[in-house]
């Protein structure tokens, strides 16, 4: 069963008096273990689609189904729970909580889930080790480089072992070396730990690493390439 199933998804919004058709009927399935990239020019609807799948935004028409549950039928509380239990997010600008250390940022989601302290600590240490940040647990975001911050963000996204990690332009703020390392990391997490990734990106390095590339043009899927 696919983790994500998108059917005939449309999203319109008003910009002044002008209606923007961000998505014009998208069908997409994401299976467990995928490492998929949504690509396309700016305004093609990548981020909009990612937000729909992440239960952050509501569609104008069509359905998004995650784990067999249709988001449109869920309350906002249930969608919060779904994000908490099943999804992980990585953002372009890291978006770590500045007053929390690397450890605490990665721990945040586990705490919201109500996980016990011992289990939390073990899980966070494992995750920080997996993203190569051992020894930096107590550093605050402003004491970390951009690449290190994004690794913390990845650790935060995967610490809860989500079914799917959604990453919106995760390498856009990084230099090519750092971004290459981050891609390697996520690829390794995908291959070794079976973490499912869905990216929205322009970065050719991410596309090169992808197992599947979905090309969006003007809110429609133009091309769906499996490798």
């Amino acid at each position, binding site marked *: 069963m696919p983790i994500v199933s998108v059917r005939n998804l449309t999203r319109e919004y008003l910009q002044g008096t002008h209606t923007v058709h961000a998505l014009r009927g998208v069908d997409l399935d994401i299976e467990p273990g995928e490492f998929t990239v949504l690509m396309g020019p700016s305004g093609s609807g990548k981020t909009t689609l990612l*937000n729909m799948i*992440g239960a*952050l*935004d509501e569609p104008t028409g069509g359905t998004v189904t995650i784990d067999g549950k249709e988001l449109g039928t869920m309350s*906002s*509380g249930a969608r*919060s*729970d*779904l*994000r*908490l*239990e099943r*999804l992980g*997010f990585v*953002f372009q600008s890291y*978006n770590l*909580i*500045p*007053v*929390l250390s690397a450890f605490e940022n990665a721990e*945040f*989601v586990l*705490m*919201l*889930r109500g996980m016990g302290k011992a289990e939390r600590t073990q899980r966070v240490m494992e995750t920080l080790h997996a993203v190569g940040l051992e020894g930096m647990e107590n550093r605050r975001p402003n004491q970390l480089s951009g690449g290190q911050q994004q690794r913390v963000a990845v650790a*935060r996204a995967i610490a809860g072992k989500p079914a799917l990690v959604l990453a919106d332009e995760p390498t856009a703020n990084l230099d090519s070396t750092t971004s290459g390392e981050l891609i390697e990391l996520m690829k390794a997490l995908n291959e070794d730990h079976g973490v499912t990734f869905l990216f929205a990106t322009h970065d050719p390095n991410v596309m090169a690493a992808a197992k599947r590339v979905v090309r969006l043009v003007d809110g429609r899927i133009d091309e769906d390439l499996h490798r």
Partner: protein
Amino acid sequence: MKLFLLALRNLFRNTRRTLLTLAAIGFGLSMMIFVVNLQNGSYQAMIDTAVSSMAGHVVVQADGYQDEKEPTMLVQDASVVVATMASEYPDAVVAPRIFTGGLLMSAHSSVGVALTGLDAVAELQVQDLHEKVVDGEWLASDEREIVIGVDMAKTLDIELGDKLVYMGQNGSDEVQSRLFRVRGLFRTGSAQFDGRLAFAHLGAVQEIMGGGDVANMVTLHLDDADDAFEAAPRLEALLARPELDVRHWKDALPELFAIIQVDRGSGDVMLAIIGLIVAFGVLNTMMMAVLERTREFGVMLSLGMKPRQIAWLVLLEGLVLGLLGATVGLLLGLALSWPIVTYGLDYSSMMGSETMESGGILMDTLVFGAWDPVRMALYFAGAVIFCICAAIYPAWSISKLRPVVALRHH
């Protein structure tokens, strides 16, 4: 607990802003605490002075005298009342008093007088009138002695030892006159007191009122004012004289408590305004602190935090800010109040004398503050609650945020 820690760290993310807000809360609250302790002290002094000079902890008077204040409404067999009270409360002071109005005449002039007849020895332990005598002596034993104010002496153009004639009506509307000899002059600083009041022995004024064992009030002065509430009904039962009115000091001085209540009320309004101004400052801080973190709240929402939890976080920040600010305010307020509680606040240079009149009561110009723990606790709690209230609107507005909108916020 983790959320509490997060709230604390969030507050000190902009240290300068938080310190300024804490200073505003602390300064506001410390002022309120200072004012309330000073107020409490002056009210205590007013009550103490009024109770000792105008009433007693328990007052026995003729039924109706409380409202009419008619000099002819007298307690008969006053010495029996005095004896009963003294034997029941041997450690207390019992002071009978009798009041009348009239004219005092010297060889040169005359002046209207409010004459009080009293037990000169008993009053020594109750009031400090004898300390106000600046020329001559307080009443001793001669029934003809009179002590008057310095302003009155000037009007009458007399000196110590001079003779004065009192003239006035007694209870039967007959004109009475009596000879006095000036034994002392007092100065209180109040023109009202120094120009109008005169004190003589109880027996002398009793004679003016037609003779007899009478007084307008017999007053009982206890060590502990709170004992009066039990003593009043007890004495009433013991005296068993329905024509007498026995009441404790709170009932005997209703005007005084009304004045205090009005004064306290207007003070409370001022303090509430200070509190409100500070609360708007806090609201502003909270609003800024929340708006500038809109994106961060968006991230928290996408990670699966519930809007309710985010609202809680903001309220918690208000609570922590309130607790810290109120603690600063309390400590500062205690530090500011301590000198006035310990050494008092001297108004004498401002008033130009050692005493001043307040609400018809002659008060010392050295006013001591008195700790008012109930109000201090109330204001402390009020400051914390104001801060939480100031966080309600920001918390509510942030909880309405949609994650996708919040994430786009820069």
